[in-house]
């Protein structure tokens, strides 16, 4: 097994394990509380409105919006880390069919690995500070790396291997 395949397969396995551990931690310690808070806030907003308590109703609606902002990103991070890890493992299995030399293969493998780590990391950092420019920039940079790596990989699979 050459170096680029090792990067993709072992990097993918490590990322999948990390994504699953994050998911396990999230499911056990965070998710139920978050869902309760989200459903409870929305129901409370309606109940307070029925009681004609506008201020409480607005405050409950804001709490719902804020909790949902975090929930969407937390779940996305879990699924994207594992999804990207699976993609790395599958591409790792097929990488010897890529019509590029070892150096370009290595560059693609490392780019995909870096992007797969950085992109969800940027997303989860958005929950620490809503609307953080640094977190958004990190997510954009990470997704850019994944896009570049995938575009070059698609070209490499399409190309006749004798052309390298």
């Amino acid at each position, binding site marked *: 097994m050459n170096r680029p395949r090792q990067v993709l397969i072992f990097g993918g396995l490590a990322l999948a394990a990390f994504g699953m551990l994050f998911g396990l931690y999230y499911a056990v310690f965070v998710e139920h509380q978050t869902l309760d808070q989200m459903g409870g806030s929305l129901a409370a907003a309606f109940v307070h409105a029925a009681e004609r308590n506008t201020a409480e109703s607005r405050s409950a609606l804001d709490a719902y919006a804020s909790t949902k902002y975090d929930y969407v990103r937390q779940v996305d991070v879990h699924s994207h880390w594992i999804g990207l890890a699976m993609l790395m493992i599958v591409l790792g299995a097929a990488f010897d069919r890529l019509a590029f030399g070892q150096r370009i293969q290595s560059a693609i493998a490392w780019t995909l690995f870096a992007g797969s780590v950085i992109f969800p990391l940027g997303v989860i950092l958005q929950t620490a500070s809503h609307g953080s420019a640094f977190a958004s920039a990190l997510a954009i940079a990470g*997704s850019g790396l994944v896009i570049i790596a995938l575009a070059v990989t698609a070209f490499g699979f399409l190309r006749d291997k004798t052309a390298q």
Partner: protein
Amino acid sequence: MATTVTQARDSAHLPAMSAQRLLIFGGIALIAGGMLFGDIFAVFVLHQNGGETGAALLAASHAVAAQNPTAVKEAFARIGGLLEDRGTKVDTHVHMTDAGYLALLLALVQPYVALSASRKKTLARLFLLGGVLLPIGIFLIHYVGLAYSPSSVIGLASILADSAGALMIIALLGEAWGLLHYFRSGNVSVEDELPQDRTWERRTLLSGGTMLVLLGFLYGVWYAGVNLYDQEARETKILSATLDAAGASTSAVTQTVNAYGMLAAEKAVEIAAHSHIIEFGLLAILLSFVQPYIFLSDLWKRRWVMVLLMGSIILPIFVLLELKIGLIAGGIADVGGLMVIVALVGMLVGVLRFSGSLDAQARGLS
């Protein structure tokens, strides 16, 4: 015929009822089953469930207008039940197809799992059993609830789903143990490695699959940059308007609840398009590895590849168009899903024919 040559060359790669063969059969069958379930869900449950949820939200808003907090709570309990119904069905679809992907992935790594053939077969059976029982358990959660359960919190169906998940984890740990042995023993393959050919079918599936993943990723980036924040802001605004309208007029409440339903549909189709195109891309890449084991003429192998890739692009595009051109787009999207299922079944038949011919050869019948 090229297939005959390939078959003779690959006869050592797929021994009779080996773990690899079980995982390939089981994986393709689980993916086809999961997709069929998804198609049935999309046609018979999804829209009806959305309509009922909208009606329950409308009832909650009317209860706000009537200053009746008890009725508000009842309406939200109904919304909770409807969301559970929808959520468990989506999860059944996702878990069945994902178990199939994992089975195909495990089939790929079998040559590097340094365990005896019988242990590998036991692990494969364990994984497939978990892969079948897990979605069944998830599907039953909404219907069984807490009936006959020894616990006051977790129902029997959840226990079944969790136990099936545990079986899959045990199987995966066993496979990881075998892989570790392989790497510690100096990378000596215990079986023949997968064929390394670069046929048209394999190249098309590999490049087409990667392109699909890339398209899905580009769409996801666009969605996150342009639509995600806008939709979050719109949701809060619509809910706020619903609460305001509840004290004023019935028609205004109906309007805002309809707007909320449209927003929910918009989010659902955009996320579905993103996730389906990426999953189909992964499926195409995984199926490229199975191509040497498909005992069909080259013409039919290419036909199934094209049908699969066309279905993979038709489904997400027409799911997205559902909001613009309505149910016709939904119908075309379902046809796209059916094309993927038909291609999968076609390939599965090819694998069955391949393994059947190997078995016949082994018994000296041919």
